[in-house]
């Protein structure tokens, strides 16, 4: 993985020193909250309902064990012993004291981490496929490009005060595990007819109040032109994006109002002007960044493991976990493990310091010192030998992290909602917990099969509800929490926005409503292989509507 050089170290350290001074001025009263706010936001510090919140970047979701241990240390020393992994491959600490934040940032800097640009109207932490560098279906590792983008976008002087926040995701396979088409810029690493590396470029995706699937602006941009093309997009957006209404300020609205063809012309004109300039990436520079992400020294192993097979035969719980939480690796004899931070009744994405330490230890012992954070709020051990899967499972089991539910209905994405978030209109964690309890029977979950359920506590959609096969949005109506249901959304390569199915449900009805939807699907699917999403796409909303809102029995005329 990427290692800081002297420059990176000096940069992050001087940034911490700068912020320490600013916090001191805030604490002494010299800086008003008004003047301090833009400064703290640029350092990832939010003011929540009950306390400050610090959002730490995990660039493209990649961590080593030392970094994971530092997150555990921060949770223990400065917070209430846990952290929350978010849908943007970040981790949030919910209870730090403002005076402690400079020390936390200094601790982070010591392990090459920071909180720069995790908030504010700037280019945010660049995200990537959490299986990057490991997955069997990969064309190229997206992380070197994400790292190049991270460097270019870090305190880019021109783009710190954009009309609105700006999110970039990079994927390296045809399968999209990073919801790339719901980003302001989505990049898909691919090869052209001449076998050269480059990117399919998508712009204007996003969730929130006005959800939109991104539009493809370029089928292929050469590798060398990555930064020039992105800078052209950002410049056009910064010049023309709306600033009169914050709900219309994302680039998706500009795409929608200007039209992709007209906007593409502007982007292409700017790109032509700058493409032969300083941003052109020399091949040797890309290769030198790529070298940081070189595959670890995999052993030459057979593609099967007798040890694994024996363990599966002896332990059905383990076999089930392997079936759900283990994915194909590109190196024979290895596998990718998804650790679902979604135990029955737990808050999705929360991990205690003890759990983080265990994960760090497992990464060190069994995964070449590497861990990943996924946008689905899980932690990944990307490079585990098939022979070691049982040992990893046993350790996870001992620490309550062996839920065999990856991709199933209880692998819920949920935002913090009204329990923490100042913008929330409803709670989301308790809803997730209740659904997770209702469906806790693993046999039933497996019978249902792949089903992505996503919950947001307000229209900002941090819980990606529009992209859920079943999406739940908490709203407030006359002082009551009400939950609106959308169906048919998807965040993969067949990206789609869920459709609202009808009137919302009270908090004590929503779990029943989900159960009704699931039962309707089970009763009507063509076979066990037809997933919920496929069945919905085949049948449309009608049968689900009927089941949720049965017509009142007609009263007979006298």
């Amino acid at each position, binding site marked *: 993985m990427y290692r800081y050089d002297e420059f990176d170290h000096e940069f992050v350290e001087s940034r911490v020193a*700068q912020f320490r001074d600013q916090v001191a001025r805030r604490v002494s009263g010299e800086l008003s909250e008004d003047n301090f706010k833009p*400064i703290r936001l640029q350092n990832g510090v939010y003011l929540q309902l009950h306390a400050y919140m610090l959002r730490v970047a995990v660039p493209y979701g990649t961590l080593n064990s030392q970094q994971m241990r530092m997150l555990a240390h921060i949770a223990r020393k400065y917070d209430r012993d846990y952290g929350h992994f978010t849908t943007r491959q970040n981790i949030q600490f919910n209870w730090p004291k403002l005076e402690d934040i400079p020390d936390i940032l200094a601790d982070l800097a010591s392990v090459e981490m920071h909180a720069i640009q995790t908030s504010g109207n700037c280019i945010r932490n660049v995200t990537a496929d959490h299986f990057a560098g490991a997955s069997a279906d990969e064309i190229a590792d997206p992380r070197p490009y994400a790292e190049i983008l991270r460097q270019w976008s870090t305190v880019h002087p021109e783009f710190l005060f954009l009309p609105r926040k700006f999110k970039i995701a990079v994927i390296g396979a045809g399968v999209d595990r990073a919801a790339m088409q719901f980003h302001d810029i989505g990049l898909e690493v691919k090869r052209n007819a001449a076998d050269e590396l480059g990117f399919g470029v998508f712009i204007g995706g996003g969730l929130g109040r006005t959800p939109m699937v991104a539009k493809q602006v370029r089928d292929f941009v050469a590798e060398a032109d990555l930064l020039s093309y992105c800078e052209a997009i950002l410049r056009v957006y910064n010049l023309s994006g709306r600033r009169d209404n914050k709900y219309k300020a994302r680039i998706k609205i500009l795409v929608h109002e200007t039209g992709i063809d007209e906007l593409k012309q502007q982007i292409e004109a700017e790109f032509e002007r700058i493409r032969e300039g*300083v941003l052109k990436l020399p091949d040797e520079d890309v290769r030198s960044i790529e070298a940081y992400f070189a595959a670890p020294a995999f052993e030459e192993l057979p593609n099967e493991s007798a040890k694994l097979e024996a363990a599966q035969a002896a332990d059905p719980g383990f076999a089930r976990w392997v079936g759900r939480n283990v994915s194909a690796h590109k190196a024979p004899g290895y596998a990718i493990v998804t650790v679902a931070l979604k135990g029955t009744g737990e808050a999705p994405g929360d991990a205690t310091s003890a759990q983080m330490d265990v994960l760090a230890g497992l990464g060190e012992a069994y995964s070449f010192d590497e861990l990943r954070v996924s946008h689905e709020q899980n932690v990944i051990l990307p490079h585990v030998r098939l022979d070691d899967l049982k040992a990893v499972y046993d350790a996870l089991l001992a620490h309550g992290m062996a839920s065999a539910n990856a991709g199933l209905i209880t692998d819920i994405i949920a935002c913090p909602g009204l329990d923490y978030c100042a913008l929330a209109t409803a709670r989301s964690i308790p809803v997730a917990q209740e659904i997770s309890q209702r469906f806790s029977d693993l046999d039933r979950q497996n019978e249902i099969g792949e089903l992505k359920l996503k919950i947001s506590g307000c229209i900002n959609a941090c819980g990606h509800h529009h992209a859920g096969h079943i999406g739940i949005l908490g709203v407030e109506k006359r002082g009551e929490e009400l939950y609106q249901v959308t169906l048919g959304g998807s965040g993969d390569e067949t990206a789609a926005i869920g459709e609202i199915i009808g009137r919302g449900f009270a908090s004590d009805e929503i779990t029943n409503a989900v159960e009704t939807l699931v039962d309707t699907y089970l009763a009507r699917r063509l076979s066990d292989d037809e997933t919920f999403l496929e069945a919905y796409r085949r049948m449309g909303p009608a049968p689900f509507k009927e089941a949720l809102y049965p017509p009142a029995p007609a009263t007979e005329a006298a």
Partner: protein
Amino acid sequence: MGTLFVDLDQRDDPWISIEGEQPVPDGVDVIVSLDIFQSQREELLARNDGRIGVYLEPLEPVSAIAGDLDRLSVVALNFPSFADGTSFSKARQLRDAHGFEGEVRGVGDVRIDQIGHMQRCGFNAFVVENDATIAALSKGDNPALHLHYQPAADETKTGPGAKRWARRALD
């Protein structure tokens, strides 16, 4: 009325700003709004007793004056609020796309924490209204980091061992 800093040094402002219906006086250096510039372009460009500058609001594009830049000495770009960063890109257009070598001044809600970013985008003068910023600049304080990950309008400043695209100016 703000305080003018050119290259971070405080100066008396020789320029008179003309807006609205006000007639353009002879014999002085004037900065006019885009409206005035467009409606009186011929007379203004024919003047030979005083220099001309144009003031642009965020949504008034650089292209509106691009053809006349060689006759202009100043382009003033407004920041109606520090959070409106449109003018950062316009400064870069002036410098990089049009090669404008006159003064690019930032006016409006110009704050100390942004000065360094503005300089990197091509601004070389600031008309500052914010008291804390005036105080800091007068003392010679500029808290900007001197380490940069990327080239901007200041791309000639190169750090040791720098990659071109990841220019690491250590000035």
